């Protein structure tokens, strides 16, 4: 009966009407959600983690977790999806819709060849012609050799494209995207977004993201979701230009944006002269690491210094060696050559050979707030232990200092005795910062410390770092691929490419007059909400 209906000939209309979803405890996950998407347009759903945006997207595929109870209606092209028979839902997923989730390459079965991965999704006879078309649509090679490859024989970018080609291979006219670029660096993100933009025409698209700057590049209609309720919705440009809710205004402000550079402070050398002691000085660092595919040079003759109270951003694409440099500085990666000086004093390359005081002076806040905390230890105990070891105080005193630090990083004392799994990502990252501060360091190294966080949470953590840097005269080395973040926090910028520092200067020098091509490429790839809005805004808005 629905056999012909689920292959939409034109981009389908999508409607959600009074959708309410509750968990078994009666807590509402989505409350009275209603919106419509006209055929061929794109709706962006924006909200932070836990706002119910993924749950909402999945209802459009007829997927509601069996413990949840749903009411209301979701319809694609007039066909009700919510509560539809399984056969209808199965047909929708197979023929009617293309879905791309977080970390798209993870959807590629490693043992399957490119052509098998595509053929699997083709609804009609999966002949060679159809596979060629699917690959061609996302600008992938179509030759026999390429089609026989397996996912691990493709580059990261090719994997991203293949995942998209696979999702679209059923020629569906409904494209559902759930944070498809969240785990990517800016360069890859820009590539994937370009590809999605190219696929948008003739399709109805729904994109869910916490990042307004990403949604800005795609969406015609914006839905802002908070705690399962629609706070605001309307045509994208109108809504973003004149947000009626404080929440949206806050999100817009929190978006890392190249165009919103922090106030420039005079560089330290000019301020204090060259005789000012540097907190950290790295000279001629050479370091490499081994991967399965061979040796990667992470640092080839890298030199830089950081003064007290200064934030230096180390920028580069994924795999450019940023983390290895950080690990060499704290002494857990053995460099091949080069020296590290802390407070103008030469220290041993290995942390184990450094004194406790030398180890204290430089602290690392790791990329992943989930891996950095022992899941079996209460965060307060971990923090107190760090205080005890580095400040040499008694255990009870360490507990008190720990609570003070907790307050300093903006955490509620109630969380002190929790295990990490009962904290949110932003809270964990604050705990990690508190643990680093327990050592009273001169230099704080933040290795992609905020890239796993929602933009609104990230903004809070960045503000905290800026405040600590100012109040405690901390030197900060901020490692990131996100130039929007750099604009918000850095005094000076170092750009790393293939282990070499190819650009070095103050924030405005580097951003306004980039010399190196890599810098220009990174700048061009960074999504800027204000610039996108400027481009897209019709002339009636000045």
């Amino acid at each position, binding site marked *: 009966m629905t056999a012909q209906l689920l292959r939409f000939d034109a981009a389908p209309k999508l409607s959600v009407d009074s959708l*309410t979803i509750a968990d078994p*405890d009666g807590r509402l996950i989505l409350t009275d959600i209603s919106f419509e998407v006209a055929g061929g347009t794109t709706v962006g759903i924006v909200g932070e983690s836990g706002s119910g945006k993924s749950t909402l997207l999945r209802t459009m595929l007829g997927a509601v977790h069996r413990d949840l109870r749903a*009411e209301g209606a979701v319809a694609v092209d007039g066909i009700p999806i919510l509560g539809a028979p399984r056969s209808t839902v199965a047909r929708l997923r197979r023929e009617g819709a293309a879905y791309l989730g977080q970390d798209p390459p993870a959807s590629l079965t490693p043992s399957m060849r490119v052509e098998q991965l595509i053929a699997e999704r083709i609804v009609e006879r999966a002949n060679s012609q159809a596979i060629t078309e699917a690959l061609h649509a996302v600008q992938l090679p179509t030759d026999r050799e390429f089609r026989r490859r397996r996912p691990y024989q493709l580059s990261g970018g090719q994997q991203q494209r293949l995942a998209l080609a696979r999702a679209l291979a059923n020629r569906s006219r409904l494209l559902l995207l759930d944070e498809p670029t969240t785990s990517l660096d800016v360069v890859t993100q820009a590539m994937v977004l370009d590809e999605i933009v190219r696929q948008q025409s003739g399709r109805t698209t729904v994109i869910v993201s916490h990042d307004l700057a990403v949604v800005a590049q795609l969406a015609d209609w914006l839905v802002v979701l908070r705690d399962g309720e629609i706070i605001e919705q309307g045509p994208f440009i109108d809504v973003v230009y004149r947000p009626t809710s404080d929440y949206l205004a806050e999100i817009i402000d929190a978006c890392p944006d190249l165009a919103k550079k922090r106030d420039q402070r005079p560089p330290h050398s000019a301020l204090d002269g060259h005789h000012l002691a540097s907190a950290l000085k790295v000279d001629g660092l050479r370091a490499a690491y081994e991967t399965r595919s061979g040796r990667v040079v992470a640092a080839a003759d890298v030199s830089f210094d950081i003064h007290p109270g200064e934030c230096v951003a180390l920028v580069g694409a994924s795999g450019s060696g940023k983390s290895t440099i950080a690990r060499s500085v704290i002494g857990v990666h053995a460099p091949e050559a080069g020296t590290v000086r802390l407070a103008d004093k030469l220290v041993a390359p290995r942390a184990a050979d450094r004194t406790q005081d030398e180890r204290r002076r430089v602290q690392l806040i790791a990329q992943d707030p989930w*891996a950095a*905390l*022992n899941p079996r230890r209460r965060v307060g105990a971990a923090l107190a232990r760090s205080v005890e070891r580095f400040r040499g105080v008694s255990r009870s005193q360490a507990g008190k200092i720990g609570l003070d630090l907790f307050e300093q990083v903006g955490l509620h004392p109630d969380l002190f005795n929790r295990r990490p799994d009962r904290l949110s990502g932003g809270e964990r990252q604050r705990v990690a910062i508190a643990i680093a501060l327990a*050592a009273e360091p001169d230099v704080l190294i933040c290795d992609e410390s905020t890239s796993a966080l929602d933009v609104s949470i990230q903004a809070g953590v960045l503000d905290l770092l800026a405040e600590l840097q100012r109040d405690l005269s901390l030197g900060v080395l901020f490692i990131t691929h996100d130039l929007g973040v750099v604009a918000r926090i850095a005094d000076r910028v170092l750009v790393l490419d293939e282990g070499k520092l190819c650009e070095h200067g103050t924030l405005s020098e580097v951003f306004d007059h980039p010399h190196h091509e890599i810098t220009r490429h990174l700048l061009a790839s960074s999504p800027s909400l204000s610039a996108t809005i400027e481009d897209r805004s019709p002339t009636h808005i000045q």
Partner: protein
Amino acid sequence: MTTPSLLAPAPARSSRRLDLTAVVAAAILIAVVVLAVFGPWFAPHPAGQTIGRPLANTGADGWLGTDRLGRDVWSQILHGGRRTVIIPLVATLAATVAGDTVGLLAGRHPRNRTLDALLMVIIAMPAMLILLLLLHRFGKSAWVPIAAVVVVAFPYSVRYARSASTKAWGSSFVEQARLRGESNSWILRHEVLPNVAGPVLSDTGLRFTTSVQLVTAASFLGFGPGAPATDWATQISKNLDGASLNLWAIAAPALMIALLTVPANLLADRLAARIEQ
């Protein structure tokens, strides 16, 4: 537009409920161990004493009848428990303490293959062969099966504890601990151990069952203690022929073995799950 049906209070969460399985398993296990350890003191008849005609039915002589030598089955169960329960228990504890210690330390060096080679030598030999060889060479003292089980179980405990701890040793929280100058033993106790306690405990339950199996199999094959000493497996093996006359002579000891191993496994799993939470 929310309706009352969606806001109805939810049924109690299963995690908050008392874990009935664990409680029942613990009760059975404690009962069996108590019976085994203190049984000989309140057995109606001394070990090996004939009280009536062989293979009498239940009720006539003793409530479980008699075995093929006319001994009270119930008394024999009470006398045979110590060897069946205590030997695997002691052996498992010794093997897991030793094996887990070595495994937890070895987890620091996941690429070291020397230990693997040594363990392989033991693993390559059939467990039963090791046990029978030792029994044959050193006699039927209770220490012989204990030693055999320790030797057989040790490599598996090492490998399990090592693979469970490798991830923790390589984690960034352990790296942090090193950076604040903690000793290896502090890191082992405070950072690594809490992360592997659950899996290791549940593995211990499995090791215990395997040990019981090994020790009872040896007894069943006739390598049990010499009379009048007895154990449950010996009782099964000796009374097999009389199964049609008094089934309880083999069913009772078989049931006791099951009541020992199944709850032990269940309990270990539940405790592990509780630790993981």
